[in-house]
C-alpha cells in the first residue's frame, strides 16, 4: 500500500548503515502482528522501522514519532537479508524512507520493495556507506543514475533499476499490471 509514489529524483537527509542489515533489524519480529494492509497498522509499522538496529548506528526515529527525518538510507552489501517478511520494506516506506542506496540486496527484500512500490531499492557499486554520514544532504537521481552527497560534494554512479523502476513508479506490481493490461482493474 504505497503512500506517495516516490519520484525519480529524491533529495533529503541520509541515514547510514553497513552490511547484512537483516529484516529482524529493520522490523523486529514482535511487531509482525501488525498487518500492513490495515491503514492504522501500516502507520504503526512505520514507527518501528529500524527499531532492531544496534544503538551505534544512531537514532533513526525520534521516540514517539512515526515518520523519520531521513528520506534516504545508505547501506553496505546484502541489505534486507533474512526473512521474507514484506513488513520490512513496508515499515521503511511507511516511516518516510523513499529510497535505499545499497551495495547489494537480498533477493526477497528487493522483490518485495518492487512489488509493493514502497521505496526504490537502488544499487551503487562504490562503498558509499564508508563515505556518507547520518544527516548528510543527499540527492538520488534515477534519471542520471547518480547519487550526490551535497555535504561532501562527491558524486557516485548508480546501477540503473531497469524494468523495476516503472513498477515502483506505478505503485507496485498490481498497479503496474493494471496499467499494462496484465490484469483487469479491481472489482
Amino acid at each position, binding site marked *: 500500500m504505497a503512500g506517495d509514489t516516490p519520484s525519480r529524483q529524491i533529495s533529503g537527509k541520509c541515514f547510514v548503515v553497513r552490511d*547484512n542489515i537483516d529484516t529482524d533489524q529493520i522490523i523486529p519480529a514482535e511487531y509482525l502482528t501488525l498487518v500492513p*494492509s490495515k491503514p492504522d497498522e501500516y502507520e504503526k509499522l512505520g514507527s518501528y522501522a529500524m527499531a532492531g538496529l544496534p544503538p551505534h548506528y544512531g537514532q533513526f526515529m525520534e521516540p514517539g514519532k512515526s515518520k523519520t527525518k531521513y528520506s534516504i538510507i545508505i547501506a553496505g552489501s546484502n541489505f534486507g537479508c533474512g526473512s521474507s517478511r514484506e513488513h520490512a520494506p513496508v515499515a521503511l516506506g511507511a516511516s518516510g524512507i523513499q529510497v535505499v542506496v545499497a551495495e547489494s540486496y537480498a533477493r526477497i527484500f528487493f522483490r518485495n520493495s518492487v512489488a509493493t512500490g514502497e521505496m526504490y531499492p537502488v544499487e551503487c557499486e562504490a562503498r558509499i556507506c564508508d563515505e556518507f554520514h547520518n544527516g548528510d544532504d543527499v540527492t538520488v537521481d534515477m534519471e542520471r543514475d547518480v547519487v550526490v552527497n551535497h555535504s561532501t560534494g562527491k558524486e557516485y554512479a548508480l546501477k540503473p533499476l531497469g524494468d523495476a523502476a516503472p513498477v515502483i513508479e506505478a505503485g507496485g506490481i498490481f498497479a503496474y499490471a493494471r496499467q499494462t493490461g496484465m490484469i483487469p482493474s479491481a472489482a
Partner: protein
Amino acid sequence: MLHSSYFSVNARPMSRRSSTISAVMAPPQQQRAPASTGAVKHAMTLTEKILARASEKTKLVPGENVWVNADVLMTHDVCGPGTIGIFKKEFGANAKVWDREKIVIIPDHYIFTADERANRNVDILRDFSKEQSIKYFYDITDRSDFRANPDYKGVCHVALAQEGHCRPGEVLFGTDSHTCTAGAFGQFATGIGNTDAGFIMGTGKILLKVPGTLRFVLDGEMPSYLLAKDLILQIIGEITVSGATYKSMEFVGTAVERMTVSSFSPYLIEIVHLISRSELTQMEDRMTLCNMAIEAGGKNGVVPADEVTYSYLKGKTEKEFESVYSDAGATFIQEYRIDVSKLEPVVAKPHSPDKRVLARDCKDVKIDRVYIGSCTGGKTEDFVAAAKLLNKAGQKVKVPTFLVPATQKVWVDLYAMPLPEADGKTCAQIFEEAGCDTPASPSCAACLGGPKDTYARMNEPKVCVSTTNRNFPGRMGHKEAQIYLASPYTAAASALTGFVSDCRDFL
C-alpha cells in the same frame, strides 16, 4: 582457512555471472513458436527444468523472466492476514481464490500468546478459510491445550512435509523465507512476500527470474558425530550469507543420498521400524540442508528425488507427481566438492549464520541456555539425536534446556516412539531424566523472538546455543543476546557442560 584441503572449490565459472539486478516484473512476452527442425536437446539443471515445465516452456536459461504456475501456495498467521488484505483489495472483496485446494493455511508463528493482535490474526485466517472453503486450514481454537485441536499442526514447513504437500517436480510458494525447506523433495520451493502471494492467490501464477545453480557435491562416509546441520553451516560459512543470492543450491552426492546416522540395533524385530525411521532421518536431514539455503541468500535449495523420497511420500499424498533431474550436460555456475568424512562439528557465532567456527574452538564460551526447536532443528530426528547423546552421557543438563517440537506429530513421536539405540526409552523420558524442560506446545516459538510472552524468548542479554536458523542481533528477542547456531548433537553436548561443546566428548 581451516578446511581448504577438504573443501575444494571447482572454480569453473561456466556461464557469465550476472551481477545486475534487473527486471523482476515485465509484461508477458509473445510465445515463440517451437523450432521445427533439428532441435538440439538443451541441457538444463533440475531447477531450470521444474520452472520450464511450470511456465510451459520447452527450455529456459538463467536470467530469463518467466510466468510460473504455482502448485501450492502456503501462508501462516504472520503474513496471511496481510496477503488476504492485498488479495481482497486488488481482486475485490468478493473475489474467489484461484484454487481452493492449492492453498495451505498453517497458523504456527505466534500462537501460544496472550497478544491480542496475534490471536486476531489467526481469526482472520479462519474467517477467510471459511469464506473461501479452503481445503487445507490447520486451525487452532483452544490455545490452552494444543492437543485439543485435532487440525492444528504447528511449524508450517514441517507440516507441509508431514501432510504430503511437498511433491517432486512441483512449484511451491510460501510467505516465509524457509519455504525453501521443501526443496528436499525435489521441487522448486521459495519464500515470497505478501504482495506476491496476494497476486498468486488471485491468479495462480507469478513472474520469476530463472536462477542459475550452484552445485554442492557432498561425498564420503558421514561421521557418526556429524549431522546435516553441520554440513549446511559448513557451506554457509564457506560461501557467506550472500554467496547464493539469486541462485539455486543443488545438494547431491553419496552423503545426501544416504543421510543416515542412526546405528542399527541387531534386533530383527526392530528392523522394519528402523527402515522407516531411516527414511524419516534421510528426508529430515535433506530438509535441514534445504531449510538454510536462504541463510546463504539462496533462491531455493533442492535435493533430487529418489526411493527415499517416494517411500516417505507413500500414504501421504494421492496426487501424481513427476520427478525431474539435472541433465548430465547442464551448466552450473559453480560446483563445490565436499568430503564430509573430513568435517568436524561447527557452530555459527553471533551475530551471523556465516560466522562458522569449530565447536571445539569455542569450549571457553559459557552459555546460559540451550534451545532445541524450529523448522531447522525441531523435527523428530533432531530430538532423537539430542536424546541419544543425552542418554549416552547419562548426566543432567547444567543450563535450562528448552525443547519445542515443530509439530503435533513430532510431539507425539517424542512421547510414543521407543528408541532402539537407547534401550527402548522414549525421547521424552530421556529429556526428563536429563533435567530438560518439558517439551512445549508446537510452534515457531522463540526462534524469531515473537511477542514478549513467547515461550523461551530471550528477554535478557544471555548466551544461547540453538538448533535454529538465524542469529542476527535481536533474533530471539534481546538485541544483545548471543546465539550460537548448532546441530542437535552440539546443542545437547553444550547443555551438559554449560559451555559451547564438541559433541564428540559425549558420543
